[in-house]
């Protein structure tokens, strides 16, 4: 909530232009129940009867963060293999079964988790639960299918990464900024590692990570919770408990002790400069002020980086970035795309100057309020659909291991002050903790 002192400050700052003077609107809290089955599976149910549809999301707590070198990209390749059929489901038919009743389904893999989802007319909830339980318990593993799918994933990599201007930006950044933690490599993996995947890898991965205690089933939509719980128990309750605990031995990234710099050449139309700092994990007390910093620097045309580099100085055609807050400590990064005739050194200086400004002078109260209002907007418009609600609930349960975090963050943000922002800026935006990368177009400077 806005406190009175803040409120006056805000009034004074806002006198010149008309702005609403109420405290920010707050959204309704999510209502849900969470249960753990005897086999370790966690189940979150949240009823919403506004439309007769239901969204089911099955989160597995495994992603590219769990991959070892030599098998990069495997978590994502495995996600594709989950569509190759199970004991009662024909290969490649999962999607068409869901489509044939008017539903949609898909899956995605991230650093920390892999998510399978269905959105469908509410009466088909039993079908979706049955399909997901079938492939959790009994995946079909077939060599030809694996070989074909490796080719499909290689096409996906070409499409999204290799054949796209700036497609390799993330890959370059994380490779240069990390030495040890698996965040060093991209989720899509390398072509060589994809080709190395074997049938045994597929079987092991399923046995190790696709087990009830490593999964969270979230259902949001038009259903009766007692009936849904009975259905979930019927289909998922019979999946046996894992024989061994899920491994959690992820190598830690050692602290960075001096600035890292790199110059890379790519087939890109315009050069880019990236400045990045190691930060904390999502949910660490410092993660909240860092999230506000990303709003202050990058969100909207009045944000500092956009106004300074793109609008006023016109030394960048775009300046974007983010606090990449995920399960293990990751990066706060800023990227500027540089127009013809501008110097990368000037852009680097301007990017770093904005980080330094946060350390030397406290952000004014009005700017903090703006960032909080933007956070609240994301929060509110990010919870319109069942799918979005399920995402927030499951993310809290899987990544924070605490479903109540799905709503608790509002109060934390409300209470942040300019001093919190200055403190985290001083802690993390230091030269020794920095990575600077210049990406230059390959041999055709000024060609077009």
């Amino acid at each position, binding site marked *: 909530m806005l406190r009175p002192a803040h409120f006056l400050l805000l009034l004074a700052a806002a006198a010149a232009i008309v702005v609403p003077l109420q405290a920010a609107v707050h959204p309704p809290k999510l209502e849900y129940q969470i249960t753990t089955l005897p086999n370790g599976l966690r189940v979150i149910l949240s009823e919403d009867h506004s439309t007769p549809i239901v969204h089911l999301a099955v989160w597995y707590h495994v992603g590219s963060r769990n991959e070892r070198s030599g098998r990069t990209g495997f978590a994502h390749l495995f996600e594709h293999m989950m569509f190759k059929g199970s004991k009662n489901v024909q290969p490649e038919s999962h999607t068409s079964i869901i489509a*044939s*009743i008017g539903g949609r389904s898909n899956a995605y893999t991230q650093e920390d988790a892999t998510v399978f989802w269905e959105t469908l007319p509410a009466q088909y909830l*039993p079908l979706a639960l049955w399909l997901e339980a079938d492939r959790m318990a009994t995946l079909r*593993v077939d060599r030809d299918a694996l070989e074909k799918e490796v080719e499909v994933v290689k*096409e*996906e990599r070409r499409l999204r990464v290799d054949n796209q201007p700036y497609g390799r930006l993330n890959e370059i950044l994380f490779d240069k900024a990390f030495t040890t933690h698996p965040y060093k490599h991209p989720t899509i993996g390398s072509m060589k590692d994809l080709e190395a995947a074997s049938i045994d890898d597929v079987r092991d991965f399923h046995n190790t990570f696709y087990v009830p205690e490593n999964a969270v089933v979230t259902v949001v939509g038009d259903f009766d919770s007692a009936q849904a719980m009975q259905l979930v128990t019927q289909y998922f309750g019979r999946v046996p408990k894992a024989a061994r605990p899920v491994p959690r031995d992820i190598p830690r990234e050692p602290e960075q002790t001096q600035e890292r710099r790199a110059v890379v050449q790519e087939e890109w139309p315009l050069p880019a400069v990236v400045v990045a700092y190691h930060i904390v994990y999502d949910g660490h007390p410092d993660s909240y002020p860092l999230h506000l910093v990303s709003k202050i620097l990058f969100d909207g045309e009045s944000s500092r980086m956009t106004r300074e580099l793109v609008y006023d100085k016109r030394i960048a055609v775009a300046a974007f970035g983010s606090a990449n807050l995920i399960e293990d400590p990751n990066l706060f990064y800023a990227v500027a*795309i540089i*127009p013809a005739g501008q110097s990368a050194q000037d852009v680097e200086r301007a990017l770093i100057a904005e980080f330094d400004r946060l350390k030397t002078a406290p952000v004014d109260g009005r700017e903090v309020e703006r960032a909080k209002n933007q956070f609240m907007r994301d929060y509110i*418009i990010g919870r*319109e659909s069942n799918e979005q609600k399920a995402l927030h609930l499951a993310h809290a349960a899987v990544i924070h291991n605490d479903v109540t975090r799905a709503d608790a963050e509002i109060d934390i943000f409300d209470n942040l002050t300019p001093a919190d922002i200055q403190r985290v800026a001083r802690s993390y935006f230091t030269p020794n903790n920095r990575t600077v990368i210049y990406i230059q177009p390959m041999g055709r400077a000024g060609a077009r």
Partner: protein
Amino acid sequence: MKVSRVAGVGKWAASVYALLYVLAVAPAAAQVRDWPTEAPPRPLPAREAQFPPYEIRTLPNGMQVVAVLHHEQPAVSIRLLVRAGSAQDSKGKGGVANLTAALLDQGTTTRSAQEIADQIDFIGGDLGTGAGTDLSFANAVVMKDSFDLGMSLVADVVRNPAFTQEEIERQKDQVLSSLRVSVDDPSYIADVVFDRLIYGFHPYGLPGSGTEESLAALTRADLQEFHRQYYVPNNMLLAIVGDVTSDEAFAAAERVFGAWPRVALPPSSSTEPPPSARRIVVVNKPDAVQTSIRVGQLAIPRKHDDYMAWDLAVKILGGEGANRLHQVLRSQYGLTYGAEADTEARKDAGDFVAKTDTRTDTTGQALRLTIDEFAHLARERVGERELADAQAYLAGSFPLTIETPDQIATQVLNVLFFELPVSEIGTFRERVSAVTPDDVQRVARRYIRPDRLSIVLVGNARAFASQLIELGLGGYEVISLDELDLMSPTLKKERRRP
């Protein structure tokens, strides 16, 4: 509109069971040994899905206003559409609609660009303006306590843009930079060249952002003229969507737009797109590791009696819930990450296009399989089952399309924008279910002419040239990225001899 049952339910059993193995016959790594062999569970009783309430009114100045009320989240979305886009760019003024829209929120007669950004960002809102081929837009999302400010901002940017020289230069630089980046994006190049083949010099065939030359020539007066002609209330649609009452919504629309007078619109001057003819263009990008493929033809505009049957035919070829192309190119051959076909039905004309990307050495194979699927659809009657599945998906997914307030508003705006009968809103399922295999065959024969397809390939031409010749597609044109000129009849920059 009452609907007696959800279409597709009756077909449920047949479609689902046919896709299952009754017994596990393939080698399975069944980790759970005593897992039962069983059929999928039956559905629960269905609850009726009704199109949610909305209200349409027309202001005395001709502006159509739609209110969709939705009170779950305390936010309101404001969407204003102008019935003019790059299709209204006059000759030699390519990019004027796009640049005009980009300048809307970059300063008005009473607010500077920075003040607009400060105001919208401070309230935690979002404001965006832009243009497409047939329309331009100004959209805002605000929290409910900022609704009045949101309306005032949207009205100010569409009514009173300042078009200062300084901001025009800034936006031109932005457009030029994004054009330079787009040139390296194979799918962008494939799309613009494909549109140019289909529509020729019809406005739909020309790039909406303009070209470097046309942008350089645009003046402040051009933008003011475009704005004066087309940004008038009788040429606009406004949707107010979210946590407001209907009285609040219409009162706000009246407050910010009511006093704006109606203005006569310029007569529309539309040219006909050229008839379909076989043309194959290869845009050479030697550094490409994949080839972007586009195959298609001129078809029908959105407002057309054949639209529903035609849309189903194209969905069978490559849409959600069916998709022969995906089945063949990805599932059967592993040639691509994705393949799809879309009806691009616009206001004056429409086309359909199949899109896929494949590695360089399978370019010919993927193209051959794609063309074969076009011929297959034109030649053979679609099976009852396949059509039923496509219909079941489309009709069955109706409740998924009315979940959020913006989805609801989009459906109403679409009907108003394309001037379709208002009775179409909420009767989607009935119209889908009415299509028969004969309808699909009739439209497929009528609009698919396999010998007159337009084909665009963007990739490493030298590496796949021999594949094209083997396919009997030897009559292709190769254009290097550097010499590509969409404004030239040959698509190549004119070479001036000294």
